[in-house]
């Protein structure tokens, strides 16, 4: 009898454990909810301490922002607390007014724009590229890809590396008969957004079947978590192809393909070719996707990362001083700050992009009056 009771007790404990196990995830969610309230407290505190600005968003730009902000701190003594919680999270934090600025790899979608309590403006900070990395040890030359072939590969229509379509654009390259294994991001990410936006632009079928977004319903392939997850899949699986950030590919010495751009040139992804891609006519609101760029020397799969701020800076007892500091910081980012891009494998803003960013910053107001003169 005693044993029975004990068993029952253990089962109960098991039940509790199982629930606790499956729930640990949601406690994360819960903490992020708590985090929000805590952060708003800290904003309130930080609002007293006008020497610390708060930002949140894109993980992609985080290394560059850390460098920029620490350099800015050396010269101006302003502290910036930037949390790389993902673009979607950054936008949410800005919507809740818990941060001074958000950072995103994608422009606000309609729902996000509608949720903003007042209009927000997009300021380009840097540009990044997404490259197609592959694992074909037999192939010594750099592989070339055209938009049509790329779309067919990711739609699952081309399944072997020695397919006639791939061979036609890689004359003289001996392609193996290995099956193509596609690796994509399993987590929602700006990288996926840039890549699927590009595919939607160049392939009608992709746009109809899959579409664009930070997570999509991939027709084929394996998902890896983060750049490192996708890179791991590519390195491990013979015949794999996947998309990763340019800076990650450079740092890890991975092979990546040349892409044919809109002008018909095969472009090697590089910092220079990404900056070139951004040297196009940019609309005044800076909400532009650089994918499939018109620029003849531009790499076609690239995009901006934007800082997001409210156009009207006077809200929630914010001081004029605080908004001036924020705008001066962003102004510095798009000018002096750009020198730190290259070393960290980010593409500096093109002159056209800087001009638009300047105009955007000048349009920001405090109580109706422009903050920057």
């Amino acid at each position: 009898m005693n044993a029975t009771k004990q068993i029952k007790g253990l089962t109960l404990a098991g039940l509790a454990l199982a629930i606790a196990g499956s729930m640990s995830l949601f406690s994360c969610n819960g903490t992020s909810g708590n985090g929000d309230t805590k952060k708003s407290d800290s904003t309130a505190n930080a609002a007293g301490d006008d020497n610390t600005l708060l930002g949140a968003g894109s993980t992609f730009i985080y290394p560059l922002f850390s460098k920029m902000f620490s350099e800015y701190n050396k010269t101006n003594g302003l502290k910036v607390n930037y949390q790389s919680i993902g673009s979607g999270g950054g936008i949410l934090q800005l919507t809740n007014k818990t941060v001074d600025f958000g950072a995103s790899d994608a422009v606000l979608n309609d729902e996000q724009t509608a949720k903003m309590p007042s209009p927000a403006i997009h300021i380009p900070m840097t540009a990044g590229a997404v490259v197609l990395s592959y694992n074909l040890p037999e192939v010594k030359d750099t592989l070339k890809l055209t938009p049509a072939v790329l779309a067919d590969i990711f739609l699952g229509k081309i399944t072997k590396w020695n397919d006639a379509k791939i061979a036609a654009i890689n004359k003289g390259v001996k392609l193996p008969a290995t099956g193509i294994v596609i690796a994509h991001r399993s987590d929602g990410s700006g990288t996926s957004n840039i890549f699927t936006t590009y595919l939607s632009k160049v392939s009608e079928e992709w746009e109809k079947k899959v579409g664009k977004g930070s997570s999509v319903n991939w027709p084929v392939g394996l998902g890896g978590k983060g750049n490192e997850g996708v890179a791991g899949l590519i390195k491990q699986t013979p015949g794999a192809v996947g998309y990763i950030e340019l800076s990650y590919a450079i740092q890890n010495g991975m092979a990546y393909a040349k892409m044919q751009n809109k002008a018909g040139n095969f472009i090697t992804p590089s910092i220079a070719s990404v900056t070139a891609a951004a040297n196009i006519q940019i609309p005044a609101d800076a909400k532009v996707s650089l994918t499939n760029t018109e620029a003849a020397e531009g790499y076609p799969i690239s995009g901006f990362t934007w800082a997001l701020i409210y156009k009207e800076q006077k809200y929630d007892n914010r001081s004029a001083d605080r908004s001036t500091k924020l705008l001066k910081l962003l102004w510095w980012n798009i000018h002096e700050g750009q020198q730190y891009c290259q070393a960290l494998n980010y593409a500096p803003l093109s002159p056209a992009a800087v001009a638009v960013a300047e105009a955007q910053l000048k349009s920001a107001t405090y109580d109706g009056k422009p903050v920057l003169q």
Partner: protein
Amino acid sequence: MDTSIDNNVITRSLENTAGNYILKTPEKVKSNKRISRSYRQIRTENGFRRTLVIMAIAMIVLVFGIFLTLIVQSIPSIKTLGIGYLWGKTWDPVQNIYGAFPFLIGTLLTSFLALIISIPFSFAIAIFLGEYFPKGPISNFLKNTVELIAAVPSVIYGFWGLAVLVPIVRSFENKIDVPPLGIGIFTSSLILAVMIIPYAASLGRSMIQMVPSPLKEGAYSLGATRYEVIRSVILPYTKSGLFAGILLSLGRALGETMAVTMVIGNTSLIPKSIFAPGNTMASVIANEFTEADRTVYLSALIELGLVLFLVTVVINMIGKRIISKFTNE
């Protein structure tokens, strides 16, 4: 202080027991002390009990709080998608179409497959440690090693799986003529199986050790061999305990996230075979939560959590039913 005095009283009273003089001299002093001590005892007793009740209530409130939060947060998705969410086969954040079916299948498939793989190992370990080598340094070493398996963080299993298990599975897949991806349902089940072995093994071991020796000795005296004793005495006696261990393992497998997401392949397609890539509910939530940028999307992910919660509860309820049936027999 108290105890020493009490001890004196007790020893003195023991000395006097023979002569029946105990009630004579120290009567008053003794009873006062007894009273003051019992007041303190009552206070401690009540305080302790209150603490236990509070803790117990806190647990219940916590579980129901989580359940309620999940329901409230998934209302937008329940409203938009309805009950079809459960058997919808498409998960397409772009079109705002969400169906949990592929992930439900993925979760159940990996968990039960892992359970089937792990049972022979965990039972063998439990019998070996419980019956054959209950004591001694080797047994202790093995016991600690098995328990250590449970202490290893799951992300380490994920890395180990990716680096070691995936290439092995890939070469195996090459031989049996399925697409040699290396990652997929089967690999995740293997990893999960390793992770859950200690739960059933430890519980099973302590159950087997609790089998009363008269029972076993009776069987031996009737001429039963060791195997026969295990089969006809120990296993029937401990079956509900062993089953509870399995249930504990299953609960762990259902909720495991990190190790699985690293080796399962993360596709939203319904797996065609156990070697195909798939996805589990927990890993979808972990993957897509940060960038879920629309209300319905976020809510659909939370509803996925609700489904996982309910699946766990239902499986545990069925398990408890089975256990109580075992015990009544």
